[in-house]
């Protein structure tokens, strides 16, 4: 192509762009998505693993055409687990006209983001942003605090708690709760207790503990207390070092209980449990690599296996792929990457996820409804975790319709 011809093509494209006004910035180049999570500090490993999995997923989805013929690009911002830093990330994202901000860890940060995004969108109707929540799961966020601009792409604590309580075998009648002392941990504590009262009145809560977030170094005093309480099962929502140290202390002291966790399947969990934990630890999870094997989804199996060969930890974030499939579908349906338009398309949307299940973004409260699993950490599975020789095996599969819990959201939709 001669250079003159090229220039006229560019001029033509520019004129086209100008006619659509503000869409100019968005209509060209990649679709930028801001992602903020702790990438330094004590919980850095969580953010870092999420980031690596997001990158893997984005490469894959871009290979399948991205959305609107454009590719996705992830821009990461470290928030050091601080709400104030997350708000700075939001500011940068809106300054650059990014249509989406994602955040996964910390319900306290999520609460701050919801408020800030609401305010921003109200004041700047021509530069709105959607907040995609990839893992801040306090139940309140899609109930009392629900917002039109917030889409939660993970089961909330109420759903996880119900799954956990339903998975308790009949012979377990004494349970011990141990959670982190902040919005999320308190949410787990309250919801688990509520579901025990409702579903398993025969189960007695023999201990109920809150620990300061990320401060406890030695959990042996807690294991002593749990043992003394006579509990048969330990129910915890702990994550990060609070989870790994707790399980390790329990394993070392020979504490003979069943562990029901929400995050033992995340990176570092398997290493902390070790071979001694065969059959003792369960996790309420959206995915593990062996599900694909169990259900014969060979394409999904191959896809996660490839992640394994290029990374030093296991792929656990099936939900993240669903997020991008949702965004892709919503943008293509709305034929726009303008938040006001694709947010509307996202409401009530149903897609099929990588395991072949129907997944819906509930319109009332923007809470995802997807299948959920309870896995047990055991020997004899095809894909082991973190080189321990043990891996996750599905014990319970909960279909999405069973998790369709009522909500109290009174959503204010933009006029």
């Amino acid at each position, binding site marked *: 192509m001669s250079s003159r011809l090229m220039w006229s093509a560019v001029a033509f494209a520019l004129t086209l762009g100008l006619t659509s006004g503000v869409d100019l910035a968005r209509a060209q180049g990649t679709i930028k998505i801001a992602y903020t999570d702790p990438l330094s500090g004590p919980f*850095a*490993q969580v953010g870092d*693993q999420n980031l690596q999995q997001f990158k893997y997923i984005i490469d894959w989805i871009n290979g399948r055409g991205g959305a609107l013929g454009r590719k996705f690009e992830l821009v990461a911002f470290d928030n050091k687990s601080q709400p104030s830093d997350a708000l700075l990330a939001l500011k940068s994202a809106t300054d650059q006209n990014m249509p989406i901000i994602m955040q996964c860890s910390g319900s306290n940060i999520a609460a701050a983001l919801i408020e800030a995004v609401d305010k921003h969108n109200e004041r700047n109707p021509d530069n709105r942003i959607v907040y995609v929540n990839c893992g801040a799961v306090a139940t309140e966020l899609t109930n009392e605090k629900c917002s039109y601009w917030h889409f939660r792409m993970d089961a909330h604590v109420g759903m996880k708690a119900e799954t956990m309580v339903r998975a308790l075998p009949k012979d377990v009648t004494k349970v011990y709760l141990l959670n982190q002392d902040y919005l999320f941990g308190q949410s787990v504590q309250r919801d688990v207790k509520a579901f025990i009262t409702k579903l398993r009145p025969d189960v007695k809560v023999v201990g109920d503990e*809150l620990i300061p977030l990320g401060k406890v170094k*030695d959990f042996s*005093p807690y294991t002593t207390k749990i043992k003394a309480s006579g509990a048969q099962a330990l129910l915890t929502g702990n994550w990060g070092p609070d989870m790994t140290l707790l399980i390790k202390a329990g394993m070392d002291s020979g504490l003979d209980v069943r562990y029901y966790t929400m995050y033992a399947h995340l990176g570092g969990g398997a290493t902390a449990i070790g071979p001694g934990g065969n059959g003792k630890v369960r996790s309420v999870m959206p995915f593990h690599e062996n599900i694909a094997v169990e259900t014969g989804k060979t394409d999904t199996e191959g896809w996660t296996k490839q992640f394994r060969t290029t990374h*030093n930890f296991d792929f656990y974030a099936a939900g993240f792929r669903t997020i991008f499939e949702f965004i892709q579908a919503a943008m293509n349906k709305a034929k726009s990457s303008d938040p006001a338009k694709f947010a509307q398309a996202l409401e009530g949307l149903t897609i099929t996820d990588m395991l072949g299940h129907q997944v819906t973004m509930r319109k009332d409260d923007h809470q995802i409804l997807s299948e959920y699993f309870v896995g047990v950490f055991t020997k004899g599975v095809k894909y082991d975790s973190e080189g*321990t020789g043990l891996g996750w095996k599905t014990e319970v599969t909960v279909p999405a319709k069973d998790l369709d819990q009522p909500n109290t959201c009174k959503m204010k939709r933009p006029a």
Partner: protein
Amino acid sequence: MEVLLVSLLNGLVYGMLLFMLASGLTLIFSMMGVLNFAHASVYMLGAYFAYDVSRHVGFWPALVLAPVLCGAIGALIEMYGLRRVHKNGHIAELLFTFGLAFIIDKGVQMAWGLLPVAYRVPAVLDRPLFTIYGTNFHAYRGFMLLISALMFCAIWLMLTRTRLGLVIQAALTHPEMVGALGHNVPASSPRCSRADRPSPASPASSGNYLVTEPSMAFTMGPIVFVVVVFGGLGSLAGCFIASLIMGFVQTFAVVFDVSLANVLALVGIKVTEASPFGEVLTIPLPRIGALLPYVMLVLILLFKPRGLMGTRDT
């Protein structure tokens, strides 16, 4: 009763672990007056070295080699870093080591990644040593107790029985006089910090008691300072006692489910969550257990600024 006994054991192990970490800091901070913020970071580095070395030559040789490696790094920092900034005073030292801590932490993250590494205990130690009321006392914890006890003896002997130790102790209070007697005071302090090498043995042995991960320096750093200041500067015994106290306080704070409201109830004042300050007064002790060492630090600085057995001011 059984809870009491098991908790005593837990407290003892945790206290001794703290002492293991704090003993090195005692030598350099409280004996030599070097404010070393990078202490916990070097400790973490030791744990990672031990993990890496143990993968190639096995656990036991690593237990010897890792401290040597770690000591070499400590010596380099001392000779090319601390010795230069030392003459500019405490603030310079503090800032230098503060920056160093960040560099080491980030370096560890880049070298070993953010995930915990699988630093496993050898089979001999990976079993219950004895069982007390149905709770296993892990053999590894016994091993750690032994190492800390040996370290305490070694440091104590070095300080009181060797020529170097005596010079250091004298130089703390009367540097001019020691100099006048013909000892090279500036030269003896770096020698001491290299002599403090039993302390890196601690990461090698505690790395697999706790989980070896990049945030371990961050979680252990502050508490070690608390132990040294609480015990009193310039006192090894003070540091030892403070470690044990902190160990017991944190352990028992978890076990006793009481709140201020329970205490007030004893004197006949009834507090519920609805009464004034009820929210604060009804917080159970386990929820604030991890903060107690810092409360104790503040209190002791207010009422006994020299710490438990300190010989000089902070």
